[in-house]
């Protein structure tokens, strides 16, 4: 295991795209978050805006970059055939997948922490000028605030879990474009069905099982009651999706010819 971890770390570290994608994920998250902050208007207070959700809105775009990076960790090896070199060097395939998962999670946690911290800082600076201010009953964004700390911590975990879900999907599907299609389909499609189907109970259930809507419930700081699912339970749903994807990917990786 130690050797596999070391190898996977070297592999990721020596790929130029790793750094580029991590920077892109963080930059997109912060930039989009700041743009949404700046577009928010709450001149007289009483808006439904949740400062955490608004300032962390960039995660909707950042997660896509994270998913791409995670998919490429596996699919990049299949498209070049290097997976055979990897598996010849480490015949215990589950160990290889686990090593990839651990290294990837570590990198995403770091990038995610930077993204979330940057987004919240931008929100703290920008939002008060747009009506999300103490004058309207919103406390300044601060990690000393328990719900805000939960939203921040949860968002970082959310990104890591999206990465793991994508990694598992890529191990199962192998082809990069198809894998990212599956991941984005999973993220986007279930909420769209939920919002289209004209049945409130079914819609709520769909939002409860959708990896994105359930997972991001952790960002709610003003009214968790309006969320389809509780913050940690929602993250748990996403974790279940990620675990399921990794399990499926692992089983297929082990049973298939490389």
């Amino acid at each position, binding site marked *: 295991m130690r050797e596999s971890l070391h190898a996977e770390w070297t592999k990721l570290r020596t790929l130029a795209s790793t750094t580029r994608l991590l920077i892109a994920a963080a930059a997109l998250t912060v930039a989009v978050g700041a743009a949404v902050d700046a577009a928010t208007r709450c001149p007289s207070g009483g808006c439904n805006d949740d400062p955490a959700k608004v300032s962390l809105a960039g995660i909707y775009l950042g997660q896509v970059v994270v998913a791409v990076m995670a998919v490429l960790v596996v699919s990049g090896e299949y498209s070049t055939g290097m997976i055979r070199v990897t598996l010849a060097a480490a015949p215990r395939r589950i160990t290889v997948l686990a090593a990839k998962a651990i290294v990837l999670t570590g990198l995403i946690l770091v990038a995610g922490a930077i993204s979330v911290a940057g987004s919240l800082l931008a929100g703290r600076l920008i939002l008060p000028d747009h009506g999300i201010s103490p004058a309207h009953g919103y406390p300044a964004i601060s990690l000393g605030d328990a719900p805000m700390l939960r939203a921040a911590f949860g968002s970082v975990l959310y990104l890591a879990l999206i990465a793991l879900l994508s990694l598992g999907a890529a191990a199962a599907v192998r082809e990069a474009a198809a894998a990212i299609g599956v991941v*984005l389909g999973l993220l986007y499609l279930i909420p769209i069905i939920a919002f289209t189907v004209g*049945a409130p109970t079914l819609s709520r259930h769909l939002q409860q099982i959708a990896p994105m809507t359930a997972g991001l419930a952790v960002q709610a700081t003003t009214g968790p009651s309006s969320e389809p699912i509780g913050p940690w339970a929602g993250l748990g749903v996403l974790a279940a999706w990620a675990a399921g994807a990794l399990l499926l990917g692992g089983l297929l990786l082990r049973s298939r010819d490389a």
Partner: protein
Amino acid sequence: MTTATNTTTDSRPPADPPIAPGRDRFAYLLRAEWTKFRTVRGWIVAVFVSMVLTVLLGLFISSHSHIAPCTTGPNGGGCSYILPNGPGGEAVTDTYYFVHRALTAEGTITVRMTSLSEASENGQNPQGGPAQKQPASVPWSKAGLIITAGSDQGAAYAAVMVTGSHGARMQWNYTGDAPGLAGDVSAASPRWLRLTRAGDLVTGYDSADGANWTEIGAVTLPGLASSVQAGLFVTSPGSTTPTNQGATSASGTSSGATDATADFDHVDLTGGAPGGSWTGTSVGGGSESPYPTGSAVGYRQNADGSFAVTGSGDIAPDVTDGVGVSVLFTGLFIALIAMVVIGALFMTAEYRRGLIRATLAASPRRGWVLAAKAVVLGGVTFAAELAALAATVLIGVPLLRSSGNPVYPVTVLTEARAIVGAAALTAVFAVFALGVGSILRHGAGAVTAALTAVVLPYLLTAGIAVLPTGAAQWLMRVTPAAGFSIDQVVPAYPQVAAAYTPANGFFPLAPWAGFAVACGYAVLALGLAAYLIRRRDA
């Protein structure tokens, strides 16, 4: 291009078989690309699977939706509300309180209005009278005069009225709307209203003092019977909080139902049928409708001849209580994802193993290769999704109706535009992905960019309330997602307050304008791709 072809032609020895003109060469290219497409078994399987899933998801939605506007139907949970149709064929609400008398072919009715107030239906006292009246805050509460062709739901009419916050107006046949005097009504600032009938022609006037009258509009109601009902009406559609989260509520008005009360005096009717007297009728409404109008509505005629009328409901196009046929197109997102993946791979797969060199060696005119790919991909996508959508609509609409969902009546042309447009839009997005794939030469990157540009704005506007409404609507104008407006079958009306969100089938751009934006992106991507494929080494 043509010159190059001719040069080649001339330089060939005459013994060669006749040279195909450029058109035919493009046909060869098309054939080659089609062969490439259909011989990748995974793609063909994906096309068929996505077609089946598109149909299945459409049917799932049609059988699981309960968009019934009422909750007290015979089957307990739902009810089978039939949307009334207006004279123009559109779905309408026709619910109001009507204090009326018969009117002959020639006549005039005049009234002065001194107040318009509202009470929330939740705040009623047990005796049935409105508890706390407040000045009208529902923008489209309406009170005034109406001449109606009959008592059927959806009957033709013409009316002048004072609204909650849109001033005096003349409205007719549900969709017609013309502004009169601005400003709210009060005892200090009363409004005089007048409707004059001359045969089929009804003219509306308003006045601030009862002396100087201004014509707001004149409208012909063809075939208006010689004796019709005319009189005072009051209605209030309830408060809708503009939110982009209420996508799934059946009726945007059910939660904040209100009753409006208006005070009328100086009621004057000329040309009335002899021996007529004022009668109060609650038009429409009831437990099997979007407006469960109860005992709160009614009227009181005072000794001085003035009236206080209380009503609830709306006389307007109905944009909230039905379901558009495009709700069945949701499954198309599956096809969209599949075709975007295939579209991106159609190009990027050639780069991975160097097949592109064989392709470009076989047809050195690189721009045409791209065009051939676009035609094949777009054609396959369009044909496949059109078939899938046709099947979905054929089975889905009866299924929707049978599970109690009122389906908006739309013209054949509109329905055809929505169905063909949705299939074409999927093809446009697939071609967009092809272009992006050709630019990026990276399959996963192309799929991500295309899907995110197409689906994410829709999702953030339709369901996930994180963007400010203005920003979300802006995204639906400037991103490729603008194309989804081709699915809109019911227009948005400025005189009806509702949640006009993509999830409810409303888009900020007109159908063809949105479609044009999406096409623009595809053309832009293809153009850039054509430029790059010619400049870059293969």
